[in-house]
């Protein structure tokens, strides 16, 4: 700095310069010094000092040149000095600005390096709860049937034998009662009717038809109870969705079309269905609905070869029982069996959930282990 101060502090005459050609070396020297200074301005404060040294309004190098060289210059030198000074000024200004940007971005980078988050670390985890899987499956099934015009109704779990059995065409000592081992409620002597825990959601078929005339389409989600000893596939409480549709013109084809639609919505379009004739006292014709095994794709062969353990090689899995409402049932609700027809089904929700999610023990649903609940958020 001292060097140019010295030089720029003196008029050109004193520096012995009289001809324009001699200016070039002088300005080249200044420019060299500027570039060297510029390279040394590494941080913001050094840069500010450097900027003031060159561009300071009172004593900056450029001001000095203007005051000491340009203003007193002889007429033959003035134009050349002015041109050189402008050229130098343009260079100085652009380089100082460039230097500022460089320092700023450098500082930012350093700051970012210090503040950068570690994306592999977890965020703040707020506890969020979850739906029970059975509830999710209920909802899914409800939504499917709702979309094709089925309303949802609920009913009591503690029922009378009339609604659970008799009105469903299951008189006392009917063999089917042996398959539905029933819990009874202890009642004081003289109770007008025994009470039991419903063994299926079907009593709501009767209660709904008692309340409502056709056309009707309802589903009934709820808990049901059978007096089975608990094991991996049995629980003495489980869940069903009952379905019932009654109208003037409902046929077996409408029935198969409806349940097939449900199965494809629930398990996926590639799943095939078949209807096996079966027997329930409250439906006729009665069927068991089978789906092509969703584990082996209906081949009966496991992915790694060998027999599929889920369908035991049968390629089909039993889903649920259903059928056309037996005309005898209409007699209990004052419907004219000659004028109406309908269908009913009873879907085991726990079984559907076990099939869809590959659960092999029904008990996990009711243990409510948080580790299980977390698996189905």
């Amino acid at each position, binding site marked *: 700095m001292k060097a140019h101060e010295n030089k720029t502090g003196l008029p050109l005459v004193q520096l012995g310069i009289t001809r324009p050609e001699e200016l070039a070396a002088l300005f080249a020297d200044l420019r060299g010094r500027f570039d060297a200074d510029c390279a040394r301005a590494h941080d913001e404060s050094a840069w500010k000092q450097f900027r003031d040294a060159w561009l300071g309004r009172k004593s900056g190098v450029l001001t000095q040149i203007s005051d000491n060289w340009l203003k007193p210059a002889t007429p033959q030198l003035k134009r050349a000095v002015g041109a050189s000074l402008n050229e130098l000024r343009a260079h100085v200004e652009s380089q100082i600005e460039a230097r500022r940007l460089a320092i700023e971005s450098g500082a930012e980078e350093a700051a970012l390096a210090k503040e950068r988050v570690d994306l592999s*670390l*977890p965020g*703040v*985890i707020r506890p*969020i*709860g979850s*739906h029970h899987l059975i*509830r999710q499956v209920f909802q899914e099934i409800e939504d499917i049937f709702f979309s094709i*015009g089925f*309303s*949802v*109704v*609920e009913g009591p*779990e*503690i029922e009378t034998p009339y609604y659970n059995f008799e009105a469903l065409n299951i008189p006392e*000592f009917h*063999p089917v009662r*042996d398959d539905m081992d029933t*819990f*009874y*409620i*202890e*009642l*004081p002597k*003289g*109770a*007008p009717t025994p*009470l039991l*825990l419903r063994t299926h959601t079907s009593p709501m078929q009767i209660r709904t038809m008692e309340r409502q005339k056709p*056309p009707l389409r309802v589903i009934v989600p709820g*808990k049901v109870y059978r*007096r089975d*000893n608990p094991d991996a596939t049995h629980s*003495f*409480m489980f869940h069903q969705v009952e379905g019932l549709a009654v109208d003037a*013109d*409902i*046929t*077996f*084809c*409408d029935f*198969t*079309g*409806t349940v097939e639609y449900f199965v494809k919505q629930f398990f996926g379009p590639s799943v095939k269905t078949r209807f096996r*004739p*079966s*027997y329930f006292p409250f439906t*006729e*014709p009665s069927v068991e609905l089978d789906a092509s095994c969703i584990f082996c794709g209906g081949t009966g062969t496991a992915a790694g070869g060998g027999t599929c353990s889920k369908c*035991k090689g049968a390629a089909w899995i039993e889903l649920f029982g259903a059928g056309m409402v*037996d*005309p005898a049932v209409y007699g209990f609700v004052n419907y004219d069996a000659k004028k109406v027809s309908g269908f009913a089904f009873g879907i085991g929700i726990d079984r559907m959930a076990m099939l869809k999610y590959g659960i092999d023990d029904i008990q996990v*649903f*009711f243990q*409510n*282990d*948080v*580790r299980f*609940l*977390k698996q189905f958020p």
Partner: protein
Amino acid sequence: MKVVYNWLKDFVDVTAPPEELASRLALSGTNIGGVENGPHGAVLDAEVGSNRPDCLGHYGIAREVAAIYKLPLKHVSTKPSESAAKASDFVKVDIQAPELCGRFTARVIRNVKLQPSPKWLRDRLEASGVASISNVVDISNYVMLELGHALHTFDYDKVRDQKIVVRSTRPDEKIRTLDGVERRLDPGICMISDGDGSRAVGIGGIMGGAETEISFSTKNVLIECAWFEPVAIRRATRFLKLHTEASTRFGRGADPEMAELASRRCAELILQLAGGELLAGVVDAYPGKRALKKIRVTRAEILRVMGADLPDKEIETSLGALGFAPVRIDHNRGAEGSLLAAWECTQPSWRAEVEREIDLIEEIARIYGLEKFPPRLPAARQGAARLPHHEAETRLRERLIGLGYREILTIPHVAEERDALFRPAGVSPARLSNPLSEEAGVLRSTGIVTMAAALEWNLNHGQRNARLFEIGRHYRLNGTQSSETCILTIGATGAAREKGLYDSAREFSFADLKGDLDAIGQLAAGTQPNGFQWRDGGPDWLHAAKRGKVFLGNAELGAAGQLPRRIADRLKVRQDVFFAELELDPLYEAMQTASASRRYEPLPRFPSVDRDFSLLLANRIPFSEIADSIRSLHIAEITSIEAIDLFRGKNVPPGKYSLLVRITFQSREGTLTDAQINHFAGKIISILEHRHGAQLRAS
């Protein structure tokens, strides 16, 4: 029932391999649980429905096979040679209870030679899973498996007075059955007795007695082949808890016509394998002979029920093959496919359950093939409705999940003693009269019982942090009536916030529970910010100092609080546990009302001002009294009154506490000035000083 493939071939020339046959049978109504290939060929495990007793024998299954494959069924013709002596001279049958026994046939074979059965017979029994005993006993089992009709053989010489009396049980009657068990009997059970009828020699249609049993010393055999009333059989088996091959067949409804044929078949085989002399004729008491029903089926009804047509020929051949002998009876006879076509069918004796047109339609459809009826999705004719509380329940559930609670589902069967722990006074629980175990003897009278069990399960399985909820029911008994009430149960234990990178750990506290419940209460809050109200008290099984009753208006919804140490110890729970239970119907109703009445309130245009009041209060004065007094000033500009800080101890005189209350003021008319705020503050301080003796501390 085990169906031996080769045995079927005695009656129908089926050529389909066993697996294919199994599949065709399943799709026509006889489900096959599996096919096993054993030393005696393929055996199909037929799961015969309770409505198809005719399929509990190979002959009946063969009839199905013949119908499916349109093959002829070979009839059972049997003409054993008989001696000159007449059976009726050697045995008398007297049915005194025709309501229990509709037919009783007896045949007598003299001088049989009891010995082991030949190999072919033993093989077929073995394939069917029946142990071989002796030729005569094996033959009666064989005929049962073949023709589906159960028989019983007596040692003729042990039957007193050559006489069988069929009667109802006598008072306090007992019998020792073949299996050596002495059995007490119920009134109305059909008993086979001998002589004057005083001695029972068998329980009709269920099991023979020990005293007249066949043994290797038996010379003369009496063959019983009868028909018993199914409902009476089922009633008896349930009383006796005795289920036998015979009771299964009679209990579902055997074929009364088959009784004589099965007896003849049995006699034929005994002559063949045990020798002897068959007395001529059969003693046949048949008070229950039925006229065969005529049943009509029309194409119009087939179309109405099934929704698709099938050719006349298919209708006629399937019904014909099953024994219904269809005959066209309409005026368009001969017009193929007529919409007016009607057939009259005759109910075969082996299909008592087929009585109605719908029963015939099912028969036609299952033999024709259910897959031939094209599925279609019917159009809905009405709008569908969700449950009335669907939206409220969904919102409640979503809020709980947002608050961090996981939904559980529990089995309501609990131990009486557990239920009693949480049961409100004066409530009678719904007890089961036939529980599986004492641990599951009553239905929960509150959801807390099963919620506690769920928390225990988690604590016992290393999960110490749990926030759970259940939307379910509790069950109670009011006299002879049951009640089911929808409830929300909440259980929480462990950390409210776990130790993490950014936060320190904090245990769940009563304040967490209250805050979460109030967040639920907000769903029922109308335009006023008042959801639930809390009042002192609550059930005894909650901590006396950390509990409260939850109200919505004047309706008590339930209670919330911490489990006291004494109960936690009984449950062997070592950490703090919190519970709440609310009745849902009033909550849902309030949510619906609130949601329907909610309206937009324009946002204020002028700024709000907070003013803090640091109060020194006597311990007995709750925050709510302070807030109520401030509200009683009816300063419209007050938009909220909040407790910001609470402090007891150092620098606070004993018996007092320091409460920092923040009041927010806002006007809809303009920006509030200092003078206005000071005016309000003055009124507030004055009422708190006068009413509650509050001292204002410098804040």
